């Protein structure tokens, strides 16, 4: 069972190389190989979730070096859940890319796609802070390639900003990791948590500063308040399947905050226990307020969906900042919902942009699009899910988070910001929906292309996550609460990582 921990990282890496060499067999071979590997990842991650449900941390020691000395990969409920969401999202995105032939618009789409998954899964599985940095870089380098896939002037401009800000983020990450290493002398997350508990008081200030620097780095990934300006342009200008896959990229930031800060500066950290949560909560609320304004001010549908992603990330930050197992459980429920629905919405925005021909996704009056009833009802469905109206899963996610905030000191601020931002997004989506589908111009010939049926399957598939999350709401929310409880129990994580013995070699 130990090997199961390494597989989600190894499979896309080996897959990437296989897909690269499948180039000689033509695009069809690359496509089917890529689909096959993503399907394999889904089955693998379902198996991982099953294994993680036993509640035991599965630790893989790479190179058979015991924990503080070697790099470890840890399979627990949180990492299993994240890998599962990633693989499902990847399937939807890949299916859309193949069905609309977007993957033909540049070389190596499938290779970069696999390497992107390699970086993502590695970041979710690793138990070592420096290794997390390496996987971040793998993920980012693949994402630079994917972001620019298909080229275009606006895409290059947004890509340049995205690359520069992430390179600054990487530098800050190294400063933070270096300072932490200098102060506690380890890089293993579990070992660091154990060492901080006994760190001398004169080092506390340095450790806290490094912790907050690390928060900035993850804030860049998660698009937290002052660091979100790159997101709307990058997401709005890239190709649809890539934007859909990037719906998970911001969640990597959230995951890293929960994993690294939640464990290192968790209950074992003494004076530094949870010193970072007010920052996350406050900045999350600010991000939410600004994202709601962005949703209202957006000039095109893709930009609007990008701001909606920002709003959902901000809601997740608020949930993380509330700092209780119930709130974290609710946050994970909302995370599953927002990732899959946001992915679906990016794909749907592309369908709409194609249907409107030259007007693209701009909020202006245009001739009616083909299959307007089908696309329009899908849009309404997605908008209801995304803005958090009943009866879909966004509503329940928000109710769970707000319910967990009831006895928090900032109760009124949290309720005020979340509810007003929710109202603003509802108004904005209602406006854009009526602009796109009702205020149409009469014309004899429809300018846009009709809906690509097989590509639409991906949209429906990803958006179907929302009703499924409602129908299976009880088991899913029970599961996410277990995930949160396990995450809060950082002592058992530290024990599991540090006490895993090396595998004895069989002597010949």
């Amino acid at each position, binding site marked *: 069972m130990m090997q199961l921990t390494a597989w989600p990282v190894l499979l896309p890496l080996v897959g990437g190389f296989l897909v690269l060499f499948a180039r000689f067999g033509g695009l069809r071979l690359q496509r089917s190989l890529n689909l096959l590997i993503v399907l394999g990842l889904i089955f693998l991650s379902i198996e991982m979730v099953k294994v993680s449900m036993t509640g035991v941390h599965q630790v893989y020691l790479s190179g058979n070096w015991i924990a503080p000395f070697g790099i470890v990969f840890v399979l627990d409920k949180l990492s299993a859940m994240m890998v599962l969401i990633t693989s499902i999202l990847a399937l939807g995105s890949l299916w859309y890319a193949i069905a609309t032939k977007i993957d033909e618009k540049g070389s190596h789409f499938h290779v970069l796609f696999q390497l992107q998954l390699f970086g993502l899964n590695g970041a979710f599985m690793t138990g070592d802070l*420096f290794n997390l940095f*390496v996987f971040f*870089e793998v993920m980012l*380098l693949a994402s*630079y390639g994917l972001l*620019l896939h298909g*080229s275009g*002037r606006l895409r*290059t*401009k947004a*890509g*340049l*900003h995205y*690359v*520069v800000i992430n*390179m*600054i983020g*990487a*530098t800050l990450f*190294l*400063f933070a*990791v*270096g*300072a932490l*290493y*200098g102060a506690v002398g380890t*890089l293993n997350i579990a070992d660091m948590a154990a060492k901080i508990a006994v760190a001398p008081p004169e080092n506390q200030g340095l450790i806290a500063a490094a912790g907050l620097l690390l928060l900035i780095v993850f804030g860049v990934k998660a698009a937290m308040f002052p660091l979100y300006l790159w997101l709307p342009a990058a997401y709005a200008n890239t190709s649809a399947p890539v934007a859909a896959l990037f719906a998970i990229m911001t969640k990597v930031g959230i995951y890293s905050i929960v994993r690294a800060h939640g464990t290192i500066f968790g209950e074992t950290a003494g004076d530094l226990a949870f010193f970072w949560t007010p920052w996350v909560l406050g900045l999350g609320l600010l991000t939410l307020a600004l994202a709601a304004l962005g949703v209202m001010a957006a*000039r095109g549908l893709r930009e609007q969906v990008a701001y909606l992603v920002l709003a959902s990330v901000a809601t997740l930050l608020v949930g993380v900042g509330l700092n209780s197992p119930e709130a974290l459980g609710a946050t994970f429920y909302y995370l599953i919902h927002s990732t899959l629905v946001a992915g679906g919405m990016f794909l749907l925005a592309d369908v709409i942009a194609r249907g409107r021909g030259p007007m693209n996704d*701009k*909020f*202006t*009056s245009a001739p009616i699009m083909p299959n307007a009833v089908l696309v329009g009802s899908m849009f309404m469905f997605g908008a209801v899910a995304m803005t958090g109206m009943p009866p879909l899963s966004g509503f329940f996610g928000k109710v769970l988070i707000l319910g967990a905030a009831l006895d928090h000191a900032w109760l009124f601020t949290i309720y005020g910001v979340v509810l007003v931002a929710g109202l603003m997004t509802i108004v904005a989506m209602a406006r854009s929906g009526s602009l796109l589908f009702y205020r149409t111009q009469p014309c004899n010939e429809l300018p846009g292309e009709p809906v690509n049926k097989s590509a639409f399957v991906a949209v429906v598939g990803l958006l179907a996550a929302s009703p499924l999350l409602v129908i299976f709401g009880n088991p899913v929310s029970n599961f996410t609460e277990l995930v949160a409880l396990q995450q809060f129990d950082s002592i058992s994580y530290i024990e599991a990582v540090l006490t895993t013995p090396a595998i004895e070699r069989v002597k010949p």
Partner: protein
Amino acid sequence: MELLIALVIGVMTTAGVYLTLRARTFPVVLGLTLLAYAVNVFLFTMGRLTIGQPAVIDAAAAGYGDPLPQALVLTAIVIAFGMTAFLIVLALKARGELGNDHVDGLHLAPDEVPYEKPEQIKPSQQTQVTETTMNSQSNQEVKP
């Protein structure tokens, strides 16, 4: 030696931050490179500055030099190197496509169309529109 190293890191970071905030892509690339240098030296010193100590624990020696930061620096150098190479190519591409090397692509390229506001209507139509709105307003006034 500590003071010297600290000054070097400080100066490189300052210069790096200053250059990164410049408006043209080439200084930004240089700034990021300087920042990467600074962080590499910083990582190196996090293993503490020691002279003449064995890297691996030796029973006879009084102490040992930490070998791990060197491995970290090596990884960081390789990554920063790759990233910088990518950024330079991207900056060249942006220079070609945007028509200038401003990081925001500030001036429009010769064939770029500025974004049009949705409500821009020609003057002749505008009068009609105001007339109709006037009519509708007057209608509303009549109703009650």
